[in-house]
């Protein structure tokens, strides 16, 4: 659905996006992660033909956005952080205005979408009377009007209360399930991305530092939670026996390839270390993201990814 190939964007002398290659497959909820200023919005701007790439190719729905923007965006809907509308006009009029930039839209279609997002009864009120949540719903409605195949959501949960965030999450899932949309979700809310996305890319300082499936992150490393009477002694023993490769936080060990938890327990018990608990630990996105950022901050010579799979390439 979206392909970026060696894309670069330089504002003045400052590179905002460097050598970005990205592929968003059809039917996925794809997360684009990164802190503020990482280059996410610039990348999205290039996908929508709002920002011209300095070099590289951006294709959306099979069309080059730079040369065939109208065809590329025919079936694309987008929502931006803090949705902005013509406040002095009604929600209905806003939808009418925005949808006509794509194609003439029937009143019936506008009604359907208003109903879908739950704004029925308020569509004739001026947008200035809308709450933030209602504006977000209106933004969603305008994105859905052209019956898109691809939805680009740039920080859609920004400024929403916990209830609104939950509602947005359910809506995104419903959109994918009921309409089969491909969704690109740009966010720095890691929990949301973790709950929604099937695949993610992480950007830092304009560069992509990771792209892969969410499942590969959860199982990125064979971490095991270990509770013993003497963690340091246990780690020493396990290292000596080549059963672990790493340890952290005084309670986690990374199993070596081919080693299993029963071998660990046997080794520790044999050496009089009391084992109270041992259980596999799934790494969450936050841990993964933070370790990626930590790795990226290190000087080039010292860079050693905290996770073996956190690399600049794509994971399977």
């Amino acid at each position: 659905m979206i392909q970026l190939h060696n894309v670069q964007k330089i504002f003045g002398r400052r590179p905002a996006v460097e050598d970005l290659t990205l592929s968003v497959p059809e039917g996925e909820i794809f997360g684009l992660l990164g802190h503020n200023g990482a280059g996410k919005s610039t990348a999205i701007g290039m996908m929508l033909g709002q920002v011209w790439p300095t070099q590289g190719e951006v294709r959306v729905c099979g069309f080059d956005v730079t040369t065939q923007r109208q065809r590329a965006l025919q079936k694309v809907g987008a929502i931006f952080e803090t949705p902005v509308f013509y406040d002095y006009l009604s929600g209905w009029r806003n939808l009418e205005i925005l949808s006509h930039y794509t194609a003439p839209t029937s009143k019936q279609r506008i009604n359907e979408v208003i109903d879908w997002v739950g704004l029925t009864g308020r569509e004739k009120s001026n947008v200035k009377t809308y709450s933030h949540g209602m504006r977000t719903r209106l933004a969603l409605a305008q994105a859905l009007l052209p019956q898109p195949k691809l939805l680009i959501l740039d920080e859609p949960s920004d400024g929403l209360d916990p209830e609104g965030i939950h509602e947005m999450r359910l809506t995104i899932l419903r959109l994918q399930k009921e309409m089969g949309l491909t969704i690109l979700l740009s966010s720095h809310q890691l929990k949301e991305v973790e709950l929604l996305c099937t695949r993610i890319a992480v950007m830092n300082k304009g560069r992509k530092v990771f792209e892969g499936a969410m499942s590969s992150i959860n199982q990125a490393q064979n971490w095991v939670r270990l509770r013993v009477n003497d963690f340091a002694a246990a780690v020493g023993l396990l290292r000596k026996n080549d059963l672990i490769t790493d340890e952290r936080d005084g309670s986690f060990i990374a199993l070596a390839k081919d080693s299993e938890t029963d071998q660990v327990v046997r080794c520790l018990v044999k050496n009089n270390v009391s084992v109270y608990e041992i259980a596999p630990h799934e790494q969450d996105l936050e841990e993964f993201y933070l370790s990626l950022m930590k790795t990226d901050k290190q000087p080039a010579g010292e860079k050693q990814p905290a996770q073996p799979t956190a690399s600049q390439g794509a994971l399977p």
Partner: protein
Amino acid sequence: MLILQLRNELWKLFGKKRTYIGTGMFLLAQVIFIMLLEFGNGPYRSLVSGIKGAGLSVDNYLSNLTVATITLTPTAFFLLPLYVALVGGDLVAKEAEDGTLRMILSRPVSRLRLLLLKWMAGAVFSLALVITLGLFGALFARIFFPTGGLFVFMPLEGIFGSFDGITAWERFAVVHLVMTVEACSIMSMGFMFSCFNIKPAAATILAISFFFISMMMYNMPYFRELREWFIVHHLFVWTNFFRQSIPWPEVGGSLSILAGYNLTFLIIGCAAFQTRDIKS
């Protein structure tokens, strides 16, 4: 589709209060001028003596059209440029500032088409503003002055004209129609600046500055020989329709030059807008 999109641009333009602030002030200025001419002792006497001095009948020429034309001149020279520059400067830059432009440009509409729609909306506004002014001036003046002939005296432009009956109304209407070209040209100037990556206020100020600098130079005696090179000389082409005999070659030349100006403003604006990045 084009009509639908233009209608939407007009909804946006005419839906906001900001658009009417200028018009409201304009009408207020006309009301003040007309009331002063009717109730101010000095202005009334001066007007009557002007008509008498020209050897014309006060009964015929002290009319609503004459009074409306008197109020028209200062507003067209000073207020009109101000308000159309404000609207032109807002057309693109205000949407960019508010963030709605980003919403529009996530749609499959070309930037060129969007700008043409906005320019057309600006042109419709210019026409509507001038027609409103003309109608309001003539109708409000009718409350205090009878209908009759049209007497025009603009010494700085060397214009002296008197028209009767239907000709008076024709001249009054044509002047307003041609004044739309003035309004549209200044709006286009504001629109051009608005297409650059600047604030709406900056676009308006640039357009107004351009106009007033041109106006000042046009009125300086040292530049008298260069008058035709200044845009204001052509912007005030409508004054020629108050002459007894219309200088058609001059009118045609000025209108062509203004068409060229409009096209140039539009092309520069489009080029600037096409190449710029739209970011939040």
